[in-house]
């Protein structure tokens, strides 16, 4: 009887103890004790600029943007933690860099120049030089996995973030996840995309200010502007605005501008858009880059072949290269010898210099959060 009684007591105690033990063991991945109250982020968009569209499942919030900002500047997303997105997309370089071709982990050299991220949130025609990513959310993950960029698998990147106390808190605050295991590549892409959408640059350029009547163009700039936009019958038409129209100074189209001398479409050393679409006619086509803040960059074109804007204008003035067989020619028809004289050339250069705007460097949301650390 005693044994039986003792057994019952022990059983009851065991249940009690286990229950107590379960209650006392906190789930270390639980995030629900952290408040989730995101605040919408409303970026300043200059008057007359396009609408900044956001995916319904990734609206910009203060918390999301700040999380994206940290991830953008943090080398945690590279295999050996030596480089971050900002290593190649340097704010002071117009979110591009000094190199003719992108340089990744261990000095690996890519096939193309680092594309500027200026105003990338307005792109709706496909990201990268070749348009291979449809959304910023998708684009943001490519460099992490690319062996010649950050070379880190997304699973490893996610694991690092899940085990990082500060990031797990920030993912909770940005996306309302309940547990660290909910941090995944999808949310990583969303956070980086939110940050990239706020890289809005150019609203305080001399061009924009002159158009608002806040200051005046010089005579040279005015002549150059008329050439750029074909705004004056008496000025030479430099055909620039067809592809670099305001306000973004890119139409974000994919075009062949005749920089590569090939006789057959399939001879293009870099197929560009053609590699993505598989269409022969798309070989040698690349996304038109913005001219805003070109003065901050040291190399031009997808392969970084030109080292100055003068080189670029020389190319367009020459008319570029066209295959002798018209069947193999997909160079834009508005590329032809312009025959600019030196004065016209200088006027166009003067106008192009009005497209610089470095006020974005004072925007605290675009600055390196780890600076000085």
């Amino acid at each position, binding site marked *: 009887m005693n044994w039986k009684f003792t057994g019952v007591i022990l059983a009851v105690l065991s249940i009690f103890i286990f229950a107590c033990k379960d209650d006392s063991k906190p789930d270390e991945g639980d995030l629900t004790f952290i408040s989730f109250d995101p605040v919408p982020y409303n970026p300043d968009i200059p008057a007359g600029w396009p*609408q900044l*569209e956001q995916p319904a499942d990734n609206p910009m919030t203060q918390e999301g943007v700040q999380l994206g900002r940290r991830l953008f500047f943090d080398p945690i997303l590279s295999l050996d933690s030596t480089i971050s997105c900002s290593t190649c997309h340097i704010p002071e370089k117009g979110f591009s860099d000094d190199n003719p071709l992108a340089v990744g982990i261990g000095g690996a050299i890519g096939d193309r120049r680092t594309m500027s991220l200026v105003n990338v949130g307005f792109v709706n025609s496909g990201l990268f030089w070749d348009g291979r990513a449809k959304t910023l959310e998708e684009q943001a993950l490519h460099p992490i996995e690319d062996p010649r960029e950050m070379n880190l698998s997304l699973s490893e990147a996610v694991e690092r973030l899940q085990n990082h106390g500060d990031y797990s808190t920030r993912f909770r605050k940005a996306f309302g996840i309940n547990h660290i295991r909910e941090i995944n590549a999808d949310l990583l892409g969303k956070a980086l995309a939110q940050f990239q959408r706020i890289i809005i640059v150019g609203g305080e350029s001399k061009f924009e200010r002159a158009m608002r009547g806040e200051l005046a163009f010089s005579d040279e700039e005015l002549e150059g502007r008329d050439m750029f936009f074909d705004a004056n*019958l008496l000025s030479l*038409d430099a*055909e620039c*605005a067809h592809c670099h*129209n*305001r306000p973004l100074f890119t139409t974000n189209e994919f075009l062949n501008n005749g920089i590569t001398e090939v006789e057959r479409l399939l001879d293009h050393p870099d197929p560009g858009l053609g590699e993505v679409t598989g269409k022969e006619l798309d070989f040698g086509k690349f996304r038109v880059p913005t001219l805003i803040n070109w003065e901050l960059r040291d190399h031009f074109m997808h392969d970084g072949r030109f080292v100055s804007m003068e080189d670029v204008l020389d190319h367009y003035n020459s008319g570029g290269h066209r295959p002798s067989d*018209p069947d193999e020619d997909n160079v834009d*028809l508005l590329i032809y010898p312009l025959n600019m004289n030196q004065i016209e050339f200088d006027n166009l250069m003067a106008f192009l210099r009005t497209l610089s705007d470095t006020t974005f460097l004072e925007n605290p949301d675009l600055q390196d959060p780890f600076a000085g650390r």
Partner: protein
Amino acid sequence: MKNLFLYSLLLLSSLFLISCGDDDDNGADAVGTLEIFFEPVYGDSGDLINRTSNFDYPDGHEIRIVVSELFLGDLKVGTGSEEFILSDIEYIDLSDPVLDQSSGLTDKFIAFDNVPAGAYNFLEFGIGVPPALNAMNPSDFGSTNPLSQSSLYWDAWDSYIFSKLEGRMDLAGDGSFSHLFAYHSGGDEVYRILQAQNFPVEIRSGETTRIKLTIDHNKLLVRGADDYMDIENKPAAHSTGHLDIMNYLADNYGSAFTLQLLTD
């Protein structure tokens, strides 16, 4: 018992009313689809334009049409007393059409769902952007609207580019086709409204009606043996200074279009 009878009566009445409502809704939902297939050709042969196809030009040279794009504004079908707006703006790129051999139709088409069923007798549209929309600019539109594209807007005109017609001419006669031409048009003055009168289009509930719209690019450039666009000497129109060229093209659209109903 009395209450039960009352409730039953109310229930039956409700069902009756609801079913009546359904009938009304079905009536209102009597809609069909209208598809317009474009056939961009050059000349009476009916050959499709293509960047690698050569066509004779009245000046003795051969040309190729590489780019043909245009806005269509205020598309509508109607009867004598009523009209239905299909769309306020459409943008169509006719360049390099691909023919589907089985259907005989190209890959250039636009479709309008939810067109009220009925017998219409005219189709109308404008070539270009209607003045009210042309007073706006790309920043006024979301990215899914063709009017949001800055590549289709020309600041110096304060206007959208209504149409683009670009190509090359074999001026040297050696097959090089190195003489390039590019005609872009824009500005309210160049907007033209075309109406196909006495063109019966019947939209049946739940069915698709198809129309083929042929655009003869020869008729866009050529009015007669001695009246044609001077591609050799005037190869470009990009500004208001070229209004004569733009108007010449705009006036030719009326004779360049042919409509054909594909379904009874």
